[in-house]
């Protein structure tokens, strides 16, 4: 943990990165016969010390959106503005944008290539032109955030287990100390234990670093557990944007766009139908259980 001279916790960056999309559209194969419009006139601001979830079914444009944030893709129309400047103003500087906006792609374990885990995590910092000592600090810090044992650092990345590989790849991006960390489906294909582990470490990282973290996911359960703000995408547009409570309470609108709300939200709705109204903003089991006991308590009080 980083602390100032008085021992108080300080965030990594004194300034908060902010990415703004202004009327952004994106078309794959633009101009060609098979052009597909993936994003349609999107305007949104992302940033601040919080965990943001982007949801949508396959083909809703969410993966395209995250690749625009760090300049892997260039918008067909509109602007991507990072801290006040259009990232495409000077295309030669696009690499600097990628250091500020870290992107962890889907199934990132397939990007591991170096001889040791340590070297692989160091790839980003090395590209940033850092000194040896700095790189070493960054690697250790990133490994700690990704909950990778220091003993694993000198192993070949290919000897690691599936979950460990995923976390090593995550460390490789965290090591760049991005002001904004974007993760595309970080828990895809993992078992429940692996999901908890990686999402937990991401949440912890977000709190400790004070940066903003964006996760793309299909899983509403994960969104409900970890995110402060949820953005729902459907057919290349932003359909909803708000807190978990805002979004999940409109759950009847989410079903038609191929998304499924947590099972617990269905239970709450079914309870309401039976006269047990514990609110529309139920999306975690713990919360539901707490509300239920409150409800029962109140019923008892009213009776007596």
């Amino acid at each position, binding site marked *: 943990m980083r602390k100032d001279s008085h021992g108080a916790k300080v965030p990594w960056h004194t300034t908060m990165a902010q990415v703004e999309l202004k009327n952004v559209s994106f078309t794959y194969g633009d101009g060609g016969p098979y052009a597909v419009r993936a994003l349609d006139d999107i305007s949104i601001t992302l940033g601040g010390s919080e965990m943001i979830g982007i949801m949508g079914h396959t083909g809703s444009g969410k993966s395209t959106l995250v690749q625009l944030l760090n300049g892997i893709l260039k918008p067909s129309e509109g602007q991507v503005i990072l801290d006040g400047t259009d990232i495409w103003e000077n295309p030669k500087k696009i690499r600097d944008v*990628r250091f500020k906006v870290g992107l962890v*792609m*889907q199934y990132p374990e*397939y990007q591991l290539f170096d001889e040791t885990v340590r070297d692989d995590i160091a790839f980003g910092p090395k*590209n940033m032109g850092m000194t040896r000592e700095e790189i070493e600090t960054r690697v250790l810090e990133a490994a700690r955030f990704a909950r990778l044992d220091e003993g694993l650092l000198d192993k070949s990345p290919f000897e690691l287990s599936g979950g460990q590989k995923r976390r090593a790849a995550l460390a*490789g*991006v965290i090591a*760049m100390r991005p002001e904004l960390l974007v993760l595309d489906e970080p828990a895809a294909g993992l078992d429940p234990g692996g999901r908890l582990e990686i999402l937990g470490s991401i949440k912890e990282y977000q709190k400790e670093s004070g940066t903003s973290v964006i996760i793309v996911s299909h899983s509403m359960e994960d969104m409900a557990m970890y995110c402060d703000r949820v953005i729902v995408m459907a057919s290349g547009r932003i359909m909803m944007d708000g807190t978990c409570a805002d979004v999940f309470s409109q759950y009847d609108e989410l079903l038609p766009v191929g998304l499924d709300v947590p099972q617990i939200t269905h239970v709450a709705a079914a309870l309401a139908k039976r006269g047990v109204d514990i609110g529309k903003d139920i999306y975690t089991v713990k919360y539901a259980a707490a509300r239920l006991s409150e409800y029962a308590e109140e019923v008892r009080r009213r009776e007596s």
Partner: protein
Amino acid sequence: MNLNISFGQYCEGNSILHRMDPRMKIIASILFIVVIFLAKNLFSFALLILSAVVLIAISAIPVRIIARGMKALTFIILFTSIINIFWIKGETELVSFGFIHIYLEGILNALMIALRIIILLVGTSILMTYTTTPIALTDGLEQLLAPLKVLHLPVHEFSMMMTIALRFIPTLIEETQKIMNAQKARGADFSTGSLIQRAKALVPILVPLFLSAFRRAEELATAMECRCYTGGEGRTRMNILHATSKDYLFCAAFVLLGAAIILLNRLGGYALAW
């Protein structure tokens, strides 16, 4: 670097050519190539152009798709033509400037060479790639080469390899793009620096790509084994190729075309140097 390659540009359709036996199309292509090289003078070239137009018409492939395919080869066509313009010496000198001499014969020659390349590409791509799926093409090739099995040549294995390669090329291209993006996101730079630096920059792409290709190969082999694949022995096919009399007639037409070209060559006029 962009890897937007459309591979095996099969063009969906239901023309006579689409439905034809792929073996016959391969044979017809070979015949057509021979015919093209037989053509020597303007008359025979006129007939060649006519036959190419007829091919396009019966294939029902939109001309703009064919034109787009040709566009990629403009440079080669121009290059060979220009060389011919300067290279060929004739009797009718048109331009003489220092050491540069351009003859009418040179221009005619260049024109014919350009035509030859264009007709060759149009003809073979219509007969094979545009109207035949890659799998039908490999099937056709396998069956045409089947007699070579007697010589213990691995004809089936070869065609299975071709099929799998065709199946996995798009997957691997997509994968390369993904890995490249992932490394770019970590600040990898593929487009600047010296040649050696650039070659080095490819390591973070090639290592994951090879590993993934090996993993895929292994999984595919297991999956094939589980589907009772034991090689070509005892295997039957769902689509049995059978050539109809129409197909034979089609091939015969190319033989006739060749004969006609030889006759036309005798009519004289300027003849191609080679």
